[in-house]
């Protein structure tokens, strides 16, 4: 196995709120090789963004890493000082956010905001940084780059602003680009363009990408691997084929049934997953999906299932796959 670019081990992140400890990330492990495109899917509140922020060392107050390690590109992110993290952010790992309309500062020009990243992490002079920002705008497919550099965010469309965000993220040629729901706020045709752009860029610059989304369509068109998150846990992970053609976890199956397919017949209705997401302040002791799962068994309510390795890449945490252990634990009783 080659050296991992990103290795997250048994990470737990909690928010210590006045109401109690919110276990936003509850024991997840992720491994990425250089050049991988990983999709993290899951419904809102499942901990996708917090995972992204953890990798950037940007967990917002009152959040904290409670346990586990994050190794990225030779750095131990989990134990680095803020000053050292600042050298990595925007340099070795970059992130683009959901809402391009609000992610750029309204009072500075596009050029200023791109060049800021360059001045921060390289020792380019003004002239060189200007050239580089022109290159970047060309790279992300923005026409009339000279003019755009002088414009303010409010003078650009949403799609254009997301391209600018990508240009900022790519300014220092990061090893890893995290895209946190990069197209959720954009309309469908622009979504497709942005996804295409990211895939093109990946080919041009050798970088890895994490795409965070609740849209399985995006994952299918971009990723090699998928991690399915539910209530702060990765309940299933595997290759595109594993997840789309032989999903194992009940939640993954539900997720697949809930997406529209072009070739679906009229009578095959979309089936939304019933029930409500888990209350993260008081998560259940066993499988977090138990309250919404049709196949839920007694043991599911009591203990969290271990991972079962279906193949080298394909893992799933569900008692249905742990027949032996389950029988040992319960003596065969359902």
């Amino acid at each position: 196995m080659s050296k991992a670019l990103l290795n997250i081990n048994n990470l737990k992140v909690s928010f210590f709120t006045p109401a109690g400890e919110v276990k936003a990330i509850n024991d997840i492990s992720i491994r990425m090789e250089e050049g991988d495109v990983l999709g993290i899917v899951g419904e809102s509140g499942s901990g996708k963004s917090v995972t992204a922020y953890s990798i950037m060392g940007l967990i917002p107050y009152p959040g904290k890493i409670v346990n586990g390690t994050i190794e990225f590109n030779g750095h131990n992110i989990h134990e680095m000082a803020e000053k050292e993290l600042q050298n990595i952010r925007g340099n070795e790992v970059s992130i683009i956010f959901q809402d391009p309309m609000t992610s750029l500062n309204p009072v500075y020009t596009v050029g200023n905001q791109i060049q800021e990243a360059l001045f921060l992490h390289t020792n380019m002079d003004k002239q060189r940084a200007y050239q580089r920002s022109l290159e970047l705008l060309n790279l992300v497919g923005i026409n009339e780059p000279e003019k755009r550099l002088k414009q303010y965010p409010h003078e650009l469309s949403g799609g254009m602003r997301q391209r600018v965000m990508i240009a900022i993220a790519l300014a220092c040629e990061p090893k890893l680009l995290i895209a946190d729901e990069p197209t959720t706020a954009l309309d469908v045709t622009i979504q497709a363009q942005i996804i295409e752009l990211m895939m093109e860029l990946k080919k041009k610059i050798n970088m890895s990408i994490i795409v965070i989304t609740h849209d399985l369509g995006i994952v299918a068109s971009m990723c090699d691997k998928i991690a399915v998150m539910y209530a702060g846990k990765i309940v299933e992970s595997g290759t595109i084929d594993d997840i789309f053609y032989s999903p194992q976890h009940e939640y993954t199956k539900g997720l697949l049934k809930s997406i529209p397919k072009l070739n679906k017949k009229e009578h095959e209705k979309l089936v939304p997953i019933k029930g409500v997401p888990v209350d993260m302040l008081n998560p259940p002791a066993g499988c977090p999906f138990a309250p919404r799962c049709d196949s839920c068994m007694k043991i599911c309510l009591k203990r969290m299932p271990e991972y079962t390795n279906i193949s080298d890449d394909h893992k799933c945490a569900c008692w249905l796959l742990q027949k032996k252990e389950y029988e040992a634990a319960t003596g065969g009783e359902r």
Partner: protein
Amino acid sequence: MGGYIIKRVASAIITIFAVATITFFLMFLVPGGPFLAEKAPTPQTIEALEKKYGLDQPVVVQYANYMKRLIFKLDLGTSLKKRGQEINDIIRVRFPVSARLGAISVCTAICLGIPLGSIAALNREKWLDRTIMAISTVGNAIPSFVVATVLMYVCGVVLRILPTFGLTSPAHYILPVISLSFYPTAYISRLTRTSMLDVLGQDYMRTAKAKGLSQFKSLFKHALRNAVLPVVTYLGPLLAFIMTGNFVVERIFTIPGLGSEFISSITDRDYPLIMGTTIFLATLLIILNVFVDIAYKIIDPRIKLK
């Protein structure tokens, strides 16, 4: 920009014209006259004086004469009480005194209010925030003449550490400036705190951090400029506040500025001086507000000057 300036100049002329007209007629509705206070002048003397200054003519005729001189010669006339003194000269001598006091007070309010508000926001709900906001609440509630009187009594009369009369040395500025800037400082710090808290939660602040900017840099570059926008909007009312505050504070501290001159012109019924100072101050306020608009446009590129 060109269209904006033409519009502003046109509206300024109309406003000043309206101010002049309203003031002129209001002035004559107030009982009393300029020569009554003189030690018991005979009716004949008064009549002679009134005739000399044209006060015996109908108000409308006086108004027409006044406006003619104002518009065609930019001449504000001569004072009735300070015989022979041109109003233009009085303003030329008195205004710089008020302007200096006012400018120092505005700068103080801005230079203290913005940092205090930012510090409060950054220490939200901690003791520093609570302390600053408590002082600010007090400042918001007390009018400047009360501040002036208390300061004068405590620092000038009881402790005798600061001068309370005139404006002849830097130390003389301390009490008047505190009196004038206390309320706006309090107001600006509250304004800044609120907008800073809003800005700190904005997505672009997250972007700034994700770029690798330090806390300090992202605050100074990305937060502050957005957070001061409401303060810039407040500059217009602030300037008006300082101007009217000057009237009172100059009176209390016996400062020979235009403000105290204005007050005495009213008690003296010195009609040309009332008109002159009013027109001058109205014009000044309008010009300052144009500068505020332009400053706002420079700080916030989204603003279109209309």
